[in-house]
């Protein structure tokens, strides 16, 4: 059913263009607009959401869409696989994956725009037209990234969302910390993008195409090259695919804040909480993982690359979760949990669990946006206090915030039946069955499993400290009220966080033998699809053996689900005993030496700051000194030597006419003698 009807798909570019128009309008006229420029953004994102939903329905109706909109440039370039020309274009690719992601992004963007009315406008912030313009630009870039039909276009908008992230983290530019965090975020992700760009260039130079889909895609070309046993840039095709895939992965690790490029995300919490919700939780950070899903066919060709993705994902999931345990700032806890959750998605994709990874992406977008907006609501309640130790007892004073936040927390911790449980369980199950045959992936699975406990713990530590117990400060006793603009997005997201898990209840489907894994069908081409971009196709390509425990898939599944649920509950229960008391205290001594290690984030920031300031900067200064002394020294030395020697030579110019005359005569006589000698007078 791979149809490519135009029909409603003709409106697809408008999804991105509407926010771009909002950006331009707000940038130029924001000051004169009502609500300080919020309205164009709200209207545009609402329009984008509407069109995205139309796309979604159209894909559901069995169609897909792939077209080239605009040729950026084209030219002659001999590629390794024989093509002699290349065209770099902008195109639209609407398939199940991108349609789903478009809906997620435009929905969260709309809700965040609305929430901003309560969070930013009501708080009397200055510079709001700038804020809304940047949000618009971000939404534009993100949506265009999502429907990009080729790697270069994806890279371009990938970079643009990075710019928007930079601008929005640095929104409060009059402080010292926000610009610094913004710089760090851009630099760390740029470092990842460096590898990404090499990957793009390498793929383009190798295959002569950067398309994601269809016959002319680099995925197809790579498959052909591997089948033909071609040699690419001196490597065999399989190795080269692994190398280029890992290069692109550099950008993914940067954007999705995976180890070792995760350090920027906690700092990025310097931005407004709305921005954290939209960019640093639900959408931009998802761009990395989305990219892996988008070009999954390529990674599927390389088991090595997949294993690395899985291992990095599992490691990051655990690594970040442990750091989240000891944070005091509510946004910091959420930041580390975001890193950890993206680790799960990477784990899921890395073991070939395309559906599981995308499923977790979907759920996480909603529940993490919910948690961040909930945290934003708490921050409004608390008059911009973010330290959880100064909160407490907000449960009764702000019930809407509490219950929606709780729904998000349950989803994050992975408690049945909230959304997070279903997807996290599926990720872990997929990892387990592969891990039974592959030790590396088993290790990744084990780390992911342990992380479940920590996730449950830090999530409920956060909930208990914030909402339960007695108020621990004056503002907590008398919180600032929140308006409808804050409550409505919370309620919408709260409902979504509760129910989205139902779209793919794989364990239930297995047990009851009913066809209710809708997301799997969706991604598998049951509805509209593009040839080669289905779960089915990927699953056939991925060369992983699957194992089961006790000879039965159902047993394995139940075991896996039970294990993760049990660990999550154990974590939550531990948090309950430690922190759900009227006067909670810190329990740092229980962690001993590990506490300071965790508080300092495993000294990851320190070594990266050292790399920048302790290594690169002195190196640059040394280069500068070398330049000034040696290289410029030689240049100036040339002139000094000339001046010095002329200083000696000029002494024969005494200024006394008689001496000149004598020199003239002497010179003439000498010349005469020389010429005479040469002429043979004295022979």
């Amino acid at each position: 059913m791979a149809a490519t009807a135009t029909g409603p798909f003709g409106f697809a570019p408008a999804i991105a263009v509407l926010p771009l128009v909002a950006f331009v309008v707000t940038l130029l006229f924001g000051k004169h607009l009502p609500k300080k420029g919020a309205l164009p953004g709200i209207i545009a994102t609402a329009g984008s959401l509407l069109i995205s939903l139309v796309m979604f329905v159209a894909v559901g109706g069995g169609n897909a869409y792939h077209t080239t909109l605009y040729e950026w440039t084209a030219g002659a370039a001999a590629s390794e696989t024989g093509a002699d020309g290349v065209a770099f274009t902008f195109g639209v690719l609407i398939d199940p994956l991108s349609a789903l992601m478009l809906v997620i992004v435009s929905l969260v963007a709309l809700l965040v725009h609305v929430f901003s009315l309560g969070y930013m406008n009501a708080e009397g912030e200055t510079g709001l037209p700038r804020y809304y313009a940047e949000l618009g630009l971000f939404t534009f870039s993100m949506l265009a990234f999502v429907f990009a039909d080729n790697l270069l276009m994806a890279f371009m908008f990938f970079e643009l969302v990075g710019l928007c992230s930079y601008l929005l983290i640095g929104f409060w530019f009059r402080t010292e910390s926000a610009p610094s965090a913004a710089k760090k975020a851009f630099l760390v992700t740029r470092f990842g993008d460096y590898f990404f760009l090499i990957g793009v260039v390498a793929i383009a130079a190798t295959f002569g195409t950067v398309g994601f889909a269809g016959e002319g895609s680099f995925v197809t070309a790579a498959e052909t090259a591997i089948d033909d046993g071609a040699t690419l840039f001196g490597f065999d095709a399989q190795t080269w695919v692994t190398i280029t895939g890992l290069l692109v992965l550099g950008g993914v690790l940067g954007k999705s804040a995976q180890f070792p490029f995760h350090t920027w995300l906690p700092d990025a919490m310097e931005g407004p909480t709305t921005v954290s919700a939209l960019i640093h939780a639900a959408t931009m950070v998802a761009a990395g993982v989305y990219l892996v899903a988008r070009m999954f066919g390529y990674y599927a060709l390389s088991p090595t690359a997949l294993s690395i993705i899985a291992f990095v994902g599992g490691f990051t999931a655990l690594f970040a979760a442990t750091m989240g345990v000891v944070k005091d700032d509510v946004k910091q806890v959420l930041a580390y949990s975001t890193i950890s959750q993206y680790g799960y998605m990477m784990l899921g994709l890395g073991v070939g669990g395309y559906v599981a990874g995308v499923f977790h992406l979907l759920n996480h977008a909603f529940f993490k946006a919910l948690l961040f907006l909930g945290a934003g609501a708490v921050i409004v309640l608390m008059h911009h206090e973010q330290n959880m130790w100064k909160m407490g007892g907000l449960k009764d004073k702000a019930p809407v915030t509490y219950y929606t936040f709780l729904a998000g927390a349950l989803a994050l911790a992975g408690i049945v039946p909230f959304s997070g449980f279903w997807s996290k369980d599926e990720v872990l199950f997929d990892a387990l069955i592969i891990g039974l045959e592959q030790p590396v992936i088993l290790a990744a699975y084990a780390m992911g499993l342990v992380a479940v406990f920590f996730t449950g713990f830090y999530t409920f530590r956060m909930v208990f400290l914030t909402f339960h117990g007695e108020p621990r400060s004056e503002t907590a006793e008398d919180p600032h009220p929140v308006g409808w603009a804050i409550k409505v997005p919370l309620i919408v997201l709260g409902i979504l966080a509760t129910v989205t898990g139902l779209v793919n209840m794989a364990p239930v489907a297995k047990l009851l033998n009913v066809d209710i894994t809708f997301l799997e069908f969706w991604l598998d081409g049951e509805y509209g699809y593009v040839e080669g971009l289905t779960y089915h196709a990927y699953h056939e390509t991925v060369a992983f053996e699957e194992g089961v425990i006790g000879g039965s898939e159902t047993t394995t599944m139940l075991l896996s689900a039970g294990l993760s649920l049990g660990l999550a509950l154990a974590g939550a229960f531990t948090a309950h005993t430690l922190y759900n008391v009227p006067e909670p205290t810190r329990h740092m001594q229980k962690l001993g030496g590990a506490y300071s290690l965790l508080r300092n984030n495993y000294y990851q920031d320190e070594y990266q700051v050292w790399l920048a300031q302790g290594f690169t900067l002195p190196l640059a200064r040394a280069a500068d000194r070398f330049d000034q002394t040696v290289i410029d020294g030689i240049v100036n030395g040339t002139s000094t030597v000339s001046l010095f020697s002329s200083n000696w030579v000029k002494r024969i110019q005494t200024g006394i006419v008689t001496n000149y005359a004598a020199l003239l005569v002497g010179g003439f006589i000498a010349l005469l003698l020389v010429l005479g000698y040469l002429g043979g007078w004295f022979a």
Partner: protein
Amino acid sequence: MMIEILIAVALVGALVTFVAPNRIAGKLAFAISLVPTALSLWLFAAFDGSGNALLDGELAFESQAAWLEIGGYSISWFVGLDGISLPLVVLTAILCTLAIVSSWTPIDERESQFYGLILFIEAMLIGVFSALDFFLWFVFWEAVLIPMYLLIGIWGGPRRKYAAIKFFVYTNVASLVMFGSFVSLVFGLGDSVTSFGLPEIATAMLAGGPEGFFGLSGTTLASLAFIGMFLGFAVKVPVVPFHTWLPDAHVEAPTPASILLAGVLLKMGTYALLRFNFTMFPEQVEAYAVPIAAIAVISVIYGAMLALAQTDLKRIVAYSSVSSMGYVILGLVAYTQFGVGGATFQMVSHGLISGLMFMSVGVIYNATHTRMVTDMSGMADRMPIAVGVLIAGAFGYMGLPLMSGFAAEYFIFFGSFGSELLAYSALFTSLAMFGIVIVAGYLLFALQRTVFGPYNLETDYEVSRAPVHDVASMIVLLGLIITLGVAPDLIFTMITDAIDPIIQGGGL
């Protein structure tokens, strides 16, 4: 005739401005400079050339007239445009107009002479990019130095004499080396050439190269000429290790001179490299590809590292120009359509972006009278629009997609990664690409220190919004940068059209 009119308007304008009263010189020069700008845009629209000017291409706006006859070689007034030179002519005209506008605020003495010199330099620059006779070209090439020397030496900063003399002597010595190499090459070509017309020399070079001269064999002579000319142009580009005149000249030069210096004068070097070394010596390019690529990579990384260590905004941008010009060399040596085309595109793009950067630094300097990163912070608070454009320009410099810098760098990287001529091309390209990380490092660092943070200024000046004309010219540049980034084919097709004969004509 169009090119003659273009040059004549600028020259007559220079004379008129020179004798005009100081009070009106700025506005008058601006009005006059609009004529070449409009004309060059018209040339751009009416361009009907194809192919390469040196390799049997269809020239646009060609004109030729006999001039001199020396020792069996005829020298003529020979001008014309192809897809490589036309964008540079347009760039020159636009940047000169904007440079004049950006002088209105800072230049407050000897205005008529200042603006006269700018118009004079414009005429000479257009001549450099359109001349197709070696002698004529060389006259323009050298004539550019004089006004620039005066602009730096008279209106410059505290160490202006040192900087002006260094600039003049360094580039002049380089010109001498280049001139000697080229003329001995022409003599070496013997009877196959009878004029200094560049097309004729290029044809003779590709047809078999020199026979030998002064006891040197033909191939040795060609290699020596290639090296000599490369060194001569390398100073102008500038390439590490011949770059040290550039930061001194930039720091001391007044803002408008910096705009022209970075925006157009540096492109003379890369343009000449493309026209001479990379068009006439395909065999030598192949033979020396690896060392040249190594120099390019060193320029990129080393220049960027130097920029990282600076605290003077102008020095930062100056060293980053060294880095950006390294990309051009890499693209040229790749010898592919995208590589050489991207290098040419980068000449235009870097002209626009570095012009914008120097303009922004100038606007900040006019208001604060300091360029030191450590002396100020929070400028965004006082001049929001100008700083907004500055940030956009800085991101353009970092190669943000949909701005011309990204297009140029991407073309170069793509062109050089798979280059067949250059050994280890993938490795060289990957190393050079690391420049995009360092450039982000120093520019973001500078932005963080100067335009963000709480407002503070060490010098005693009251900073208010930037003048409208400055902001307007910055926005014009930004518009061009974004236009070329979104639609590179506006000039890239005409560039590649002129590049193709070079790559194919080499027979490699």
